[in-house]
């Protein structure tokens, strides 16, 4: 990738920090910005600079925020008796878009995963326990992913909730909508079978 321009090489190398971007894509992006999008490239650089410096974590829910309290936590129209725990800001966005949920959130920024160096402290669980102990929250909706680590985290969170006198609930999971049983993998089917519900 010798271009004769050390700065161009630096730009290409820097773009590779983006997820899913290898050497080829990084080069394409750099050329595209230089050839056609100088203005917006400058804008990108300015916003990037501001965002990297100013965005931290909300004190209350740990989601990304440039204020001490994010807008969701600061909002007076959200139900303060329900708290939904998610693994990531992406999961929060998905729930906001797909459901009519009006409660508050807590973002773990991960899940219990000892081999990734993620334990209770890294996930802010002491902070969550304290919040559960404040007495305002009645239900903790546990929306971690249905993976081995997500399930272990859910179990841990349920214990925290019970210790704080809060009712824990878990998202239902099973056969996807529009799915046919014969094409559903065994573990999903076993899970759905185990979690069957009374019809009334």
């Amino acid at each position: 990738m010798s271009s004769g321009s050390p700065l161009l090489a630096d730009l290409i190398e820097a773009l590779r920090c983006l997820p899913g971007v290898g050497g080829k894509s990084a080069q394409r992006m750099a050329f595209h910005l230089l050839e056609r999008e100088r203005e917006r490239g400058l804008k990108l650089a300015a916003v990037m600079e501001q965002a990297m410096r100013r965005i931290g974590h909300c004190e209350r829910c740990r989601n990304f925020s440039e204020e001490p309290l994010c807008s969701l936590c600061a909002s007076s129209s959200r139900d303060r008796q329900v708290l939904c725990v998610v693994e990531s800001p992406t999961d929060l966005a998905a729930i906001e878009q797909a459901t009519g949920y009006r409660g508050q959130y807590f973002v773990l920024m991960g899940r219990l995963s000892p081999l990734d160096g993620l334990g209770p402290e890294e996930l802010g669980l002491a902070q969550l326990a304290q919040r559960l102990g404040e007495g305002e929250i009645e239900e903790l909706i546990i929306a971690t992913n249905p993976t081995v680590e997500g399930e272990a985290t859910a179990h841990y969170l349920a214990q925290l909730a019970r210790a704080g006198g809060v009712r824990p609930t878990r998202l239902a999971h099973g056969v996807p909508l529009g799915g046919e049983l014969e094409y559903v993998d065994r573990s999903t089917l076993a899970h759905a079978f185990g979690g069957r519900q009374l019809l009334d």
Partner: protein
Amino acid sequence: MRIEQQPAYVLHARAYRETSLLLECLTREHGRLGVVARGVRGERSRLRRAQLEPFQPLVLDLLLRGELATLTAVEVVDTPARLSGDAGLAGLYLNELVVRLTGRQDPHPLLFDAYARTLARLAAGESLAWSLRRFERDLLEAIGYGLQLQHDADTGEAIEPAACYRYVAEQGAMRCAAGSPRALRGSDLLALEQDEMPDSVGLKELRDMMREVIRFHLGGGELRAWRVLAMAVSRRP
């Protein structure tokens, strides 16, 4: 080298390159292997990804080149061990222990069997603490750091059930005064040796002893899963 129809468990998975996963697997005949599973991230490969979750008995086809192997085929051969509740936290501990205490490409077939046996015990709801102590004992044995539970390391005499001992990693059990720090009863050492579950005092003493031994073999480090397990253990006798 081609490795075919290899019994294995996934211990851990993390994102690797653009669409792949780097798995740590425990295989029966080749020990722990770093395995690259290509193209298993993203929406369409949800099913294949689910097969690569921990605690499922798998049979893998692999191509081993240098440090890493590439996954060429995977099959789930049995119903996965459902480790729910505290057993799930214990499962994360097993996986961290195996990864931290074994090297890649060191074959330990006995470790594989002990691991499979422990998952079955945890899934069946057997005593968490006792299942973990048995596994730790078998793991150390399998990797060549077996505990010395029959004889006093100082005198060579048989362990006396009523006497008190302190266990020192790589040396063994030595008589000490009752009530001295980390003292444990001879009967607890013998219980572990004879694979008979001790009482709750014994389980706690054995846990502390094992932590010290494991810490020694880690070169002084801690396991992160200990803090995760604290939640499970604090609610149990």
